[in-house]
C-alpha cells in the first residue's frame, strides 16, 4: 500500500466498479462489436458466429428499408415517450419541491417509486388486462358511449407508447425533482422583489436552473425507452415493433447473433448522434437567448 503513489491511491476507490465494468460491460460491448462483423454460422457448427470472412453484410441488412422503418418507429416512440414523460414529470417534481413540506417529501417520493417494487414484466402485463378489448377500460368507455365495439388498442404501437410513458415516468421525475429542490427559494423571492411576475420568474429563473435536471431526465428516459424490448414484446404484438424487440428476436429466436449485434451497434450510434445534436441545439438556444436579451452592460 505504501508503495502506491498519491495519484493511484486517490483513484483506488474506483477499482471495484472499474473492474466490474471492464469485464461485464466493456468486454460485452467489444464482443458485440466483433460479432457484428461476423456471419451466422451453419446450424451444424458449435459456435454461433463464424469469422471466416469479415463482412459488412449484417450492416447492409440492418439498414435495409424494413429495419430502417423499425429504427425510425423506435426513435419516434422513445422521443414521444420522453416528451410526455418530461411534460408530466415536471409539474409533479415542481409541486413536490416547492409546495410540499420537507417532512412529507420522502414519503411522496416513496409512493412515486413504489411501482418499481412490482416486477417490470408483471406491471407491463397488467396493462394487457386493462387494455383488452373486453377489459375494464373498454367496457367503461363503451358504457360512456365514447367508443363503439371493443377497445382496439392492444397489440398496436399506441399500446407500446402508453406502456413506455407509464413505465419511465418515475425515472423522469427524480432528476427534475433533485434539480428543482436545489434551487434556493430566496431566488424566487428575489425575482419577485425585483419586479418579475410569477411567470417571468418561472421562465427566467426556475426553468434555466432546472435545465440540467430536465436534460438528465430526458437522456435517461430516451435511452431506456429506445432500448426497451419488454413493453413492445408484451403490449405491441405483431404490429407494435421496436428495435429492441427485433434485436431480441434475432438473437434469441432466429439465432442470428451477428445481425442482432449489428442492429445494436446502429442503435448505440444513433443514440450518440442524437445526444450530440441535442447538446448542440442547447448551446445554440442559449446563444440566441443571450442575443435576444441584449448585453447587460
Amino acid at each position, binding site marked *: 500500500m505504501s508503495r502506491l503513489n498519491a495519484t493511484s491511491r486517490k483513484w483506488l476507490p474506483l477499482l471495484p466498479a472499474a473492474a466490474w465494468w471492464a469485464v461485464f460491460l466493456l468486454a460485452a460491448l467489444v464482443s458485440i462489436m466483433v460479432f457484428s462483423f461476423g456471419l451466422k454460422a451453419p446450424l451444424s457448427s458449435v459456435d454461433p458466429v463464424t469469422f471466416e470472412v469479415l463482412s459488412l453484410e449484417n450492416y447492409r441488412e440492418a439498414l435495409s428499408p424494413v429495419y430502417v422503418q423499425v429504427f425510425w418507429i423506435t426513435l419516434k416512440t422513445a422521443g414521444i415517450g420522453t416528451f410526455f414523460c418530461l411534460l408530466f414529470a415536471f409539474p409533479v417534481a415542481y409541486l413536490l419541491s416547492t409546495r410540499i413540506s420537507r417532512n412529507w417529501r420522502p414519503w411522496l417520493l416513496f409512493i412515486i417509486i413504489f411501482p418499481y417494487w412490482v416486477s417490470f414484466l408483471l406491471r407491463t402485463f397488467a396493462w394487457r388486462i386493462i387494455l383488452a378489448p373486453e377489459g375494464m377500460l373498454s367496457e367503461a368507455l363503451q358504457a360512456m358511449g365514447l367508443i363503439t365495439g371493443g377497445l382496439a388498442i392492444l397489440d398496436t404501437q399506441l399500446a407500446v407508447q402508453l406502456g413506455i410513458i407509464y413505465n419511465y415516468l418515475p425515472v423522469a421525475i427524480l432528476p427534475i425533482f433533485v434539480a428543482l429542490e436545489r434551487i*434556493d427559494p*430566496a*431566488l424566487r*423571492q*428575489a*425575482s*419577485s*422583489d*425585483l*419586479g*418579475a*411576475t410569477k411567470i*417571468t420568474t418561472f421562465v*427566467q*429563473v426556475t426553468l*434555466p*436552473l432546472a435545465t440540467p435536471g430536465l436534460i438528465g431526465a430526458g437522456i435517461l428516459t430516451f435511452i431506456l425507452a429506445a432500448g426497451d424490448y419488454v413493453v413492445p414484446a408484451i403490449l405491441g404484438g405483431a404490429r407494435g415493433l421496436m428495435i429492441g424487440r427485433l434485436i431480441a428476436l434475432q438473437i434469441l429466436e432466429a439465432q442470428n447473433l451477428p445481425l442482432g449485434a449489428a442492429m445494436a451497434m446502429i442503435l448505440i450510434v444513433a443514440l450518440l448522434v442524437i445526444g450530440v445534436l441535442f447538446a448542440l441545439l442547447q448551446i445554440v438556444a442559449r446563444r440566441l437567448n443571450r442575443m435576444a*436579451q*441584449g*448585453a*447587460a*452592460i
Partner: protein
Amino acid sequence: MTLAVSVRGITKRYGNFVALDDVNLDIEQGEFVSLLGPSGAGKTTILRMIGGFDFPDSGDVKILDQNVVDLPSHKRPVNTVFQNYALFPHMTVAENVAYGLRQERVPAAARKTRVREALEMVEMIAMAQRKPDALSGGQQQRVALARALVKRPSILLLDEPLGALDRRLRQQMQIELKKLQRDTGIAFVLVTHDQEEAMAMSDRIVITRNGRIEQIGTPSDLYDAPDTAFVADFIGSQNFLRGQLYAKDTSITTPDGRQFYAQRVTQDAGEDALAAVRPEKTAISIDKPVSADNVCQGSILQILHLGNTMEFVVRLASGDEFFCKRPREEAAGLAVGSPVWLSWSRADMSIFKLDQGIADGLKGARVAMSGH
C-alpha cells in the same frame, strides 16, 4: 411629510405561535432604521411584511401613503438585500443587476448606463462579467446591493446583510452601507441581531421582543435611557440586582439586606424590581472605596483580556455574578481569587420593573429562593 413606511397594528399568527402582536412602526424618508432583537422576536417577519413576502392577519402596511397590504412583492416600490444575497447563479454580475430593469422594460441604452453606474457605486464594475460563484462573500454582498439600488427604490430592506461576513469585512461594510445610505437618501430598514451593528449605523433602532416592539429610539436614547430591563440588557450589557423597591423610594433592598441607590426609576417599576449598572461603570478595588454611593464585596472568579480593557467576573456574597470592565492600568495587583470591593455611582444605576426572563438568569436570586 409623507412617511416612507407606516405599519399599523399588524398581527400575524402561525398556528398558536404569535409572530407579531399589534405592531406599529413609522419610518421616515431617508432614515436608517434597524430592527434589532433576539431570534424569533419578529424582526424578520416585520421586514417580510414590508417587502410583501408575508401578509399580516390584520393591520395595514403603507408605503409612501399608499396601502400596499394586499400587493405582492413585485408590485411594491421596495427592494431587498437578502440574507444570503440570493444572486441568480446562472447570470453574470451585470445580468443580475440588469434583471430588475428588464422587468420595468427600461430601454437598452438607459439600462446599460444604470447598470454601469450601480456597479461603479459598489466598486464592482471590474467583476461585471463574472458569475456569482466566482465572487467572495463581500463581493456578492456588493452585487446584491447594486441589484437592489439600481431600481431606485424609496425603501431598501436589508435582512441580516452582514451576517455571513467576517468581523473585519463586516465593520468595513457597515461604514460603506452608512455612506451609501447618506449618498442615495433612500430609507434603509435593516434587520440584525447584532447590537453593535445597529448602534453603529442606525438613526433609530427598533427593539423587538416576542412579536412586540419593546422600545424605539436613537442609539443614545436606548443606551442612556432604556425603558425596560430587557432593552438595558440588550443594548450593551448590565449587572442586575433583584430586590424590594419601596414606594417613592429610589433604592432597592436585596434579600441579604443591602441597599443600593439609583438615579432613575422607571414608571412601571413595582415592589419587586431590578436595579442595573453597566460593567464599564462599575469600579473595582482592593481597598474599600472612601466615598461611593454603592459598594459591595466579592471575590474575583475570572479575568478576561479584551485588548485595551480587562473584564473581571466577580462573585458577590449573595451568589450573584458581577461583570466589571476597566482599563488595563487598574488591573495591577488583581488576581483570580482576590477579595475585592465593587463600587458605582447612583447616577449610573437605574431601577426597572421586574423582568422574569432576566431575573431567572440571576444566580443570587436562585440562591435566595432556594434558601427560603
